[in-house]
């Protein structure tokens, strides 16, 4: 097998491009294009054979969505896996995809609650109060502070991800890697369940009347099965995709159905 190809400079470039992960964000594959753009120079360096290149381009255009400040480890790990694949190790394409899809959920969960849910509101709140008491550089402090963390975490993430994956694949035997891939998938599913139940907020404003009191249907639903509507929506989309419909189709269906239900006052 060949020698290591990626240099420190390649990884630094990967880090810089990884910040564009949210590029051309869309409801269909979310950060797929952004992720792809980050990988392009790396793919070009690793694979010289056109077929390998095309396969790699296509590989990273799949659905991706994670937190823009904590997705670094995924870039790093994928880089290491691609490098080993390029120099001839037997790394099935599915494993690379598994790492991406299994880690994006938990890392998004961590980033969303740590940064979007906590750090950003706290920092913004403190700086806003500073500003209100007349401090003119408070906005600057805010921007510098959060972005120091932002770029620091992302840089560290890319590098740590690369090194970890490198050592991990060095030490582990293939059946061990398989066990950990399975574990990652399970974790991904558990966290996606938690994410959907927490962040999807589909509720109905319908009410019905018993005796004198008018009761919200949503309150009744919450008693039997809270978050039933978000669950049904997620499963509905999932079912439609399973049946082979395109995401485009699903997106249009959601827009139409959602608009109609909202219009007639059911949602």
């Amino acid at each position, binding site marked *: 097998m060949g020698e290591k190809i990626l240099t420190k400079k390649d990884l630094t470039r990967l880090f810089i491009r990884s910040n564009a992960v949210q590029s051309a964000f869309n409801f269909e594959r979310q950060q797929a294009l952004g992720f792809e753009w980050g990988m392009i120079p790396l793919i070009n360096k690793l694979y010289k054979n056109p077929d390998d290149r095309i396969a790699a381009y296509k590989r990273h*255009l799949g659905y991706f969505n994670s937190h823009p400040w904590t997705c670094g480890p995924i870039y790093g790990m994928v880089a290491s896996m691609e490098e080993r694949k390029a120099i001839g190790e037997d790394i099935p394409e599915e494993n690379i995809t598994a790492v991406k899809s299994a880690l994006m959920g938990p890392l998004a969960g961590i980033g969303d609650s740590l940064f979007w849910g906590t750090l950003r509101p706290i920092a913004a709140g403190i700086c806003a109060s500073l*500003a*209100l008491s007349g401090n003119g550089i408070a*906005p600057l402090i805010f921007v510098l502070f959060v972005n120091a963390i932002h770029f620091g975490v992302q840089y560290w993430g890319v590098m740590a991800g690369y090194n970890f994956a490198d050592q991990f694949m060095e030490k582990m035997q293939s059946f061990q890697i398989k066990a950990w891939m399975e574990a990652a998938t399970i974790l991904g599913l*558990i966290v996606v369940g938690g994410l959907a139940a927490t962040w999807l907020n589909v509720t109905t404003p319908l009410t019905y009347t018993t005796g004198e009191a008018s009761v919200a249907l949503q309150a009744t639903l919450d008693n039997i099965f809270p978050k039933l509507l978000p669950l049904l929506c997620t499963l509905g989309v999932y079912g439609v995709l399973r049946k082979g419909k395109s995401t485009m189709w699903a997106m249009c269906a959601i*827009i139409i159905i959602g608009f109609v239900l909202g219009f007639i006052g059911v949602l």
Partner: protein
Amino acid sequence: MSFSAIFIISFITGLTYFLRRFMGDCQLERPLVLGPVVGLVLGDFRTGLEVGASLELVFMGAQAIGGSVPSNVAIGSALGTAIAITSGTGLEGAMMVAVPVAVVASTFEMFAKTFCAFSVHLADKYAEKGDWKGISLMVHAGNIFHFLAYFIPTLLALYLGDQYVTDLMNAVPANIMSGIKAVGSLLPALGFGLLLNNLSTREFMPYFFIGFAIAAYIPSFGVMGIAFLGIAYVALYAFRKLNQEEEA
């Protein structure tokens, strides 16, 4: 407001969003930042600072998560601050404009996120041919589209004036607004459905339901708690698997 001021403010508003896409959510579109910048452009930094900081506290919780589209704080606060300064109505005026505008303007982000699905499909074609320059083009095109989705509405609104905007917003029937809102609350389900489609196998699918049920029935857990429990669980799972393999 001079047209050049209007243009600069709209451009900056679009730019903050462009940078959110291209530089990883630098938080430049927060009212705390955008407010004073608009103030600078209009020559009243102090008012911009004050209005921006106040709007920041109002929009504290607005944050896109998992592809959801919350109130559009950038457009809302750019408009709010500009109007507060030029009309002299101060904070009160800013609030009265910013909050409803932010709600309505979220439609434009939704539009951009819907439309960019096409650039992905074009990118598929370029990938097929190994044309990485084409793929890059789609990335930049998408980002510019996102830029325009903020730039144009801001420009128009500032140009037409707040009275016009308010009249327009009042003219939209409530039914249509609630239809749009419903679409906004449903669309993130696409992301979760895709994620599920990616991860699920018949054998492991029940884990999705377990994670969902815990989060739904015990809200105190939150995503962090579930990730914590989940990591502990899969560690046990992997160790057990490894043991079995070693014994076998």
